Structure formats: C-alpha cells, structure tokens
C-alpha cells in the first residue's frame, strides 16, 4: 500500500463489531455496480462471513444514462451468523449518481448511511433523475448519515497518469475507488480483488493499473479523510465445517445437471434458447464440453424443447432451461413428452409476467402454468428449490425422478434464486449416489417389445433406445393402446392411459421426502411457503419464535405430487399463512386439494419478500388484529 499517502496524519478510528450489515451499491447500468457488488461479496465470502446477495438490474442493456430506468443495484448481506436473505433494508447505500439515490431511498430506514459521489450531482444529472432541487442541499436527507465524497475527482487524481487510456476510460475505474473505500470501512483485504483484476485484464496492463490504483486510492482515502470516524468488523460466521464456495442458483442448477449426467454415466444434452433470467445456466454449461456436455442453442424455445425430447429418445440425460414466456412456447412439446413418457428436466427460472412482463425481476407466478398450462390431462412432477445452494440438489433429484417415472420433470426456480448467491458447502462428488438406469435389451412381451408395458411398482414404461435390436417401436402424440403403444381411439384405452399417467406421477409420493416442520409440531400458526421465499419466511418465523410466538415454518420443495404428510401437517395448525410472490397460486391448490382455508400473503412487485413483511403478518394473525 502506498505509505506516503496515508502518512499525513494518523487519527483515532474506532472499530466497531457488527453482527451483520446490508450494503447496496447503486449506480448507472454502465457504472459496473454488478461487478463491484460481486467483488465485495467474494471478499466477504473468503474472509468467512455468511453472505446473501440480491442483484437488481434493468432489462435494458444500456438504458439512458443517469435516468431512474438505468439504475443498477447490487445488495449484499454479510454476517457473522447464519443469514437467510439479502436483508430487508440497506444499512449502507453507495450512490454513484442522483438516479441511484432516488431509486434506493424508499428502501432505506432513517439512520442509514449513504456514501454519495457528489461529482455526479450536476444540474443535468439531477434533472435526469427528476430532482427539482439538489437533495444534498435541500435537507431531504436529514434523517440519514450522509458522506459526501467527490469520487470522480478523487479517482481522476489517482489514475491520471496511467498511460494508454482516455480520460473517459480512466473514469470507468471509479467503481473500484468506491469499492476500495467500502473495503476500508469494513476492514477487508484488497488482495482477492487485486488478484481478480490481474487475471481478468491480463491482456490489458493499463486497465489493471487503473483499477488497482483506484482501489487503493479509495482505501487510502478512507484511511486519511476525517469523514469516517468508525470502521466496522464482522467476524467469520460459524458455518458447518467444510470447503465452501459462493454459488448462485443458476450455477448450482448447471452443476446439478452435469452431476446427474455423470452419475448416470451419460452425456448431458442441454437444448435452450437465450432468455432472461435463465441464460446463465446455458453460459455455465457451454464451456463444459470436456464433461460430455452438449449445449445446443436452438432457433427458438419450441425447437429447444423438441431437441430435448429427441435427445431423451436417443438415451441422453436431456434438459432445458427457460423462463415463463419460454414455458408457454414449450408447452406443446412438453405435452408430447408427457405422452411419449420420456425422462427430461425442464427448468423454469420464473420472472414477472404476464407476457414479457418484468424480464429481470423475480416472481413465482408460473406454478399454475406448469401444472395446468397444457391441453388434456397432463400431469408431471414439479419441484422447487428453496435456496441458491439447494438448486444443486433439486436438479439432481429432478433427474432421479425423471428416469424413475419416465416423465418430464419441471424445476421452478426464479430470478431471485437464479441470480442471488450464497455460500455452498461443496459436496464430495464420490458421496453422491449413482443414478441407475436400465435400458432394455430384450423384448418384454413373448418375443415382441411392448413400449408401454409398465413397471408394476413405478408404472414407468421401459426406456428402450434406438440401437437396441428387436425393440424397434413407434411412439407419438396420438393416444395409445395400453402396453402395445399402438394408436388407439378406443374410449377405454384412453381412460386407462389417462389414469395410468396420473397414477404414475401420484406414486412418486413414495419416493419424495416428507415435509419437515421447523418449530412446534402443532399449534396456532404455520407459515407454509415454496421456492425462493424460504429465506424471508425462515428469518421471520425464527424471529417470532425468539419472541415466544407459537409459529412454525414448513417449506414445500415438491409441488406435484405434494409430500404425503402435507394434509396432516396442515391439519395440526389452527391457521396457515401462505406467502407467495404471486396472487395466491399455492393457496388455491391447497384449498382445492385439502379444503384448508389458508391465508394468502401476496406480493407482486418483482422483488422478494422482506422479512418484516412476513413478520408483520405473523404478528397480526397471532394478535387477532387483522381485519
């Protein structure tokens, strides 16, 4: 570190220990806020904090600079204890321009700290953000602890003599200045980020130079300025022992798919069409050709699904990933797969709908679509991971179910799970049991092959793949005769096949785990969720339990079929609260299937639940205060 810059004047700085802190980096989408937040998170993970992140970025790649539409934010929650969510409200906001301040302000509680890049608060930028007066001068920030830092100017001074970059390019390093300052504030090492910069820009030494200087200058600024009197320290969290890495839901799904294929001793075929927020699964799999991963970027969603059906017929572990609009297009081919009874995994990383909706914002509104959005009686299993790390296990389980029951399986993730990250206790691949698959080699019916002769236990049909002599057969989307699989329009054949397809999925209750309850086994209130609401619900319920409130949490990973004991669990509580990021889709299913009058709590703002939103509802229900 450059000594001469810090030597000016040593001053007393208080170091304060914190349990946890929530920091949000916000700026223009060109300001590199996702990168800054990711770097900060990586460092926090490496020093051992528990972490949870929430990236929030606009759908437009480069929305008009300086406007509210162009604000890109990255929120990270780090703690010395186990945490479940990216945090309800930022304790610290780093606002790189007026629009970023304006967009984030409604999320801040009084007393929060705001570090502001004052250089960006020009009349033009204020106008673009829709500010009539300068919030730095008009007293509107009086409830916050504001730190005014001329980041652009300070950064320019630090990097001005780096050669080979234009002034504009030099200015791009200012996010590293901000990052360096926050590193100082939270007493973090610079080395992990410096290493990353060196690797990332290996071919551009001038960019390495600028970014590292900016980073150090930010850090040194914290050290020398009189602005900050306190630094904060967050101890390492006591996570279960093991080797950890940071993982996002999309990364974990990709690794789960590859693992399933390896454990089945087969290639992975992933046919997909780019769509937000699922494309990162494709990006994670595409470089894995040496794992026998065949990624196929299809011409459209329909083709992606068709290719997966074809690959499954050919004996591959076949999967696709998409979002709600893609599921709509894929439904016809998914339905063909239901009829053909072939194994495959279909991932839906849900986003706000309907139609194109909110491409970069999260929602859980595809549950009914994946259950019922196909013509005819078309049952298939639906799974939903609760956390980013759990995406790994669910992807594996989805494939186990698919090959067991010879069925397409849907995995419902969402934009929040897909993009947010948490520490992952890395498993030992050798501890993961294999996926046993038996392709028949002999006819199963007196010398002839009956493609729809079912296994008496699972009702699965045999997975005979082309290349097996003597088992040639034709299957298709038309209704079939039981066992033989020949086209049949007979009323009885149709009813029998409809019932068998339904029964086959229903029997999976024997295979899936029962529903666990966190908290009292019976009592006044159960909070029942599914998918990415896990963190917020868990934290709210844990908090209520600490306040001696009689409330339990259960979280569904299996939405079709439901766990065998769900009805029993529901019956043991006087009331059941069902928070969902939709208008009550699970609630509707529970009511119709269990005649249980659950209380829905719905949020459709394109953002995850805050803990407080669930806490308030719990308190309200338990105090009888609700209307």
């Amino acid at each position: 570190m450059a000594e001469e810059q810090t030597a000016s004047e040593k001053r007393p700085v208080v170091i304060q220990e914190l349990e946890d802190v929530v920091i949000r980096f916000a700026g223009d989408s060109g300001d590199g806020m996702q990168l800054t937040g990711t770097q900060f998170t990586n460092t926090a993970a490496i020093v051992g904090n528990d972490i949870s992140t929430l990236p929030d970025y606009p759908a437009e790649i480069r929305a008009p600079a300086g406007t509210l539409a162009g604000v890109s934010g990255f929120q990270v929650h780090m703690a010395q204890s186990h945490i479940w969510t990216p945090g309800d409200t930022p304790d610290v906001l780093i606002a790189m321009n007026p629009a970023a301040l304006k967009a984030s302000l409604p999320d801040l509680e009084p007393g929060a700290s705001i570090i502001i890049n004052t250089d960006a608060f020009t009349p033009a930028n204020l106008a673009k953000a829709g500010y009539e007066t300068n919030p730095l001068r008009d007293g509107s920030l009086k409830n916050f602890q504001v730190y005014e830092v001329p980041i652009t100017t300070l950064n320019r001074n630090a990097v001005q003599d780096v050669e080979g970059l234009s002034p504009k390019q030099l200015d791009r390093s200012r996010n590293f200045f901000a990052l360096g300052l926050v590193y100082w504030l939270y007493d973090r090492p610079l080395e992990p980020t410096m290493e990353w910069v060196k690797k990332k820009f290996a071919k551009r030494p001038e960019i390495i130079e600028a970014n590292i200087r900016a980073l150090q200058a930010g850090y040194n600024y914290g050290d020398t300025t009189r602005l900050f009197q306190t630094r904060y320290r967050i101890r390492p969290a006591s996570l279960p022992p093991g080797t950890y890495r940071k993982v996002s839901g999309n990364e974990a799904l990709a690794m789960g798919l590859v693992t399933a294929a390896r454990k089945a001793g087969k290639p992975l075929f992933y046919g997909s069409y780019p769509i937000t927020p699922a494309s990162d699964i494709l990006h994670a799999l595409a470089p894995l050709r040496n794992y026998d991963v065949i990624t196929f970027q299809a011409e459209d969603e329909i083709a992606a699904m068709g290719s997966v059906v074809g690959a499954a017929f050919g004996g591959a572990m076949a999967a696709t990933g998409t979002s709600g609009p893609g599921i709509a297009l894929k439904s016809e081919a998914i339905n063909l797969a239901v009829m053909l009874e072939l194994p495959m995994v279909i991932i839906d990383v849900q986003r706000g709908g309907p139609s194109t909706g909110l491409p970069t914002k999260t929602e859980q509104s595809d549950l009914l679509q994946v259950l019922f959005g196909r013509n005819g009686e078309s049952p298939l299993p639906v799974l939903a991971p609760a956390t980013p790390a759990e995406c790994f296990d669910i992807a594996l389980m989805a494939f186990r179910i698919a090959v067991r029951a010879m069925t397409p399986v849907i995995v419902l993730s969402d934009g929040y799970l897909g993009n947010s990250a948490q520490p992952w206790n890395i498993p030992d691949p050798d501890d993961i049991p294999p996926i046993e698959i038996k392709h028949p080699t002999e006819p199963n019916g007196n010398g002839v092959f009956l493609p729809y002769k079912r296994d008496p236990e699972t009702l699965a049909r045999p997975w005979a793949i082309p290349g097996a002599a003597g088992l040639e057969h034709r299957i298709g989307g038309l209704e079939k005769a039981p066992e033989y699989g020949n086209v049949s329009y007979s009323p009885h054949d149709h009813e029998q096949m409809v019932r068998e397809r339904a029964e086959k999925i229903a029997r999976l209750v024997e295979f899936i785990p029962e529903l666990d309850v966190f908290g009292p086994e019976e009592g006044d209130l159960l909070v029942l969720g599914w998918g990415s609401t896990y963190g917020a619900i868990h934290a709210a319920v844990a908090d209520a339990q600490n306040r001696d409130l009689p409330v339990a949490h259960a979280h569904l990973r299996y939405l079709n079929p439901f766990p065998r004991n769900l009805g029993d669990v529901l019956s043991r509580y006087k009331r059941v609260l069902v928070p969902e990021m939709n208008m009550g889709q699970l609630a509707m299913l529970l009511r119709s299937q269990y005649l249980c009058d659950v209380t829905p709590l719905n949020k459709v703002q394109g953002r995850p639940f805050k803990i407080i939103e669930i806490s308030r509802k719990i308190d309200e229900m338990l105090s009888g205060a609700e209307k």
Partner: protein
Amino acid sequence: MTTIQLTRKDFVSDQTVRWCPGCGDYAILAQMQKVLPELGIPKENIVFISGIGCSSRFPYYMNTYGIHSIHGRAPTLATGLKLANPDLSVWVITGDGDALSIGGNHLLHAARRNVDINLILFNNRIYGLTKGQYSPTSPRGTRTKSSPMGTIEWPLNPISIALAAEATFVARTVDVLQKHMHDIFLQAANHKGFSFVEVLQNCVIFNDGAWEQYANRKLRDDNDIFLEPGKPMVFGRYSDKGLIQTPDGLEIVELNDEYTIDDLAVHHVESLELAWELSRFQYPKPLPLGVIYNVTRETFGEGVRGQIADAKVLKGEGDLYKLYNAGETWQVKKNGRK
C-alpha cells in the same frame, strides 16, 4: 459388424396403412422400404421422425424406431436425437404445411446447421388431413374451402427455400417416378449432412392432378428435365431440347442444326448459382428433377464432437471435483473458520 441382409419386408410394420386409396404416399413408402435394405444399416439404427399431416403417419408403417411428433417440429427432435446419438440414420418425414408453414423456422435452421439427417418433404400443395385448405405451396388462385375466391398468397418454392437456408444436398423427385425416387433416396441417405428431398406427391382427394404436367406419362417428358451431374441438361420426349448458358442465364433451345448436345450447359451440382437458377424454373419451363445441389461441409454433429474432443485434450476429462471447486473456495474448520 457382420453384413446384414435385410429385405423390404423387414421394414414393413404390423400397422395397417391408412392413407386414401390412390394416395401418392403409398409409392413413397414402398420406395423407402426398398431403399433401406440397400443401405446396409441395421434397422435398429434407423429412426423416422415426422410432424403432423397425412405424410406424418409414415413412421407407424416403418418397422424401425420412430416418433410421430408434433406439427412442424420433427426437425427439432431429429436434431436432438442425432446430436445425442450420432450413429443413427435419422429421417424426417414432413409435408408442405408441416415443413413450410408451421415448421418453417425449424427447416431453415436444421438446413443451415447441416444436421446429418434426411428430410423428405411430401409436397401435395394442399392440407389433406384437415380436409382441404390451401397450403404455403398452393399456386396463387387455388380455390379451396378456406379460399373460395382463390388464394391471394404467393406460394413458396421449397427448393429455393432449401438453397437459401444453406442445405448441402437438395433434390426433387415425383411420387410416380419409382426408379428415380429410389435413386434420389439412396443418394440422400449417402450424403453426409442435411439432405433435402422434395417429392411431388398427389393428393387424390383434395388436390388431384396438382402435378399432372410433371407426372402424367404423356406430358412429363416435355415438362421434366432430369439433371445428372456432369451431363448436359437435355430434355424432351425425343431428347430434342436442352438448356444453354447465355449472358442472361439459362435458355431453352431445340436441338437441331443450330444447336447440338455439345452446346448445352452441363449440370454442376456444386454450383449454387446454377442450382438457384434451376430452382426458379416454372411451367412452362421444364421442372428440374434429380440432385440440384450437392456439396460437402462439416456436419453439426461433427462440429460438436470435435469440440468435445478438443476440450478433453485441452482441459482433460471432466472431473466433478474440479467443477465444484473452481474459482475461490475457503475452508471452515470446526468452530468457525480458517
């Protein structure tokens, strides 16, 4: 592998064929069942995939593996299947509605990717299975139930579409020309890459005689031109007409004192320009039949498998331990970390 002696009968399934009596599809099915034994491919390695329409019932009648899939999507299933299992001989059976209307997009992309499959397009210029609406290849003015005053849509030219979509093998034949069809199917099967074959097929019920001038024994000699690679392009009942190359393109001439066979243009299957020009021939010009275009290019599957092989050389065989532990990792010991 031992040599396999298969016969036509081996490829006949136990299902009753349900096309209308007199439908051109029967002849195509019969030819296919004759061609396959000649390929020397075990029948368990052959897969027929179809979409929806009269032609798409085809796989049920073949004693091979098969999928009767959904409307227009057969090329997508074939692509996935061929990528997953490169040893298979994969055939797509489709029609003018299936391939050029609802499935138009998939046809384009299977062709440009050069997926090593054979696509046989039964072109009867009508929707048969839905009982007689106009199709994307119906000539302008065709009167059908859905176009009582005649269609006002301009038809697509399947051969031009295949060429524009970068197909590497493009051919045309007619359902009644048994020997010719046989030869074209054989060549399509032996082409490595995407083979596109248009078969002019008669729908006796809803569009009878749509290809009369090319199929009728009395008319066809003057209206069909049989292309053969490296041979002069000659046609006519008495082989008395041919095509010459002029600065304005191909022109029809009569062979007489002025022009002899040596003056005629020769068919180059590797010339995209020539193929394109031939694809635009319309009545009363003769209809080009045979292999119109045939080039070799890396297939999609070869490309993918090449990358897999390269990746294994560069990075080594995939190892889950390495995959999980890529990037930054950290240790947590009992009671806290590090």
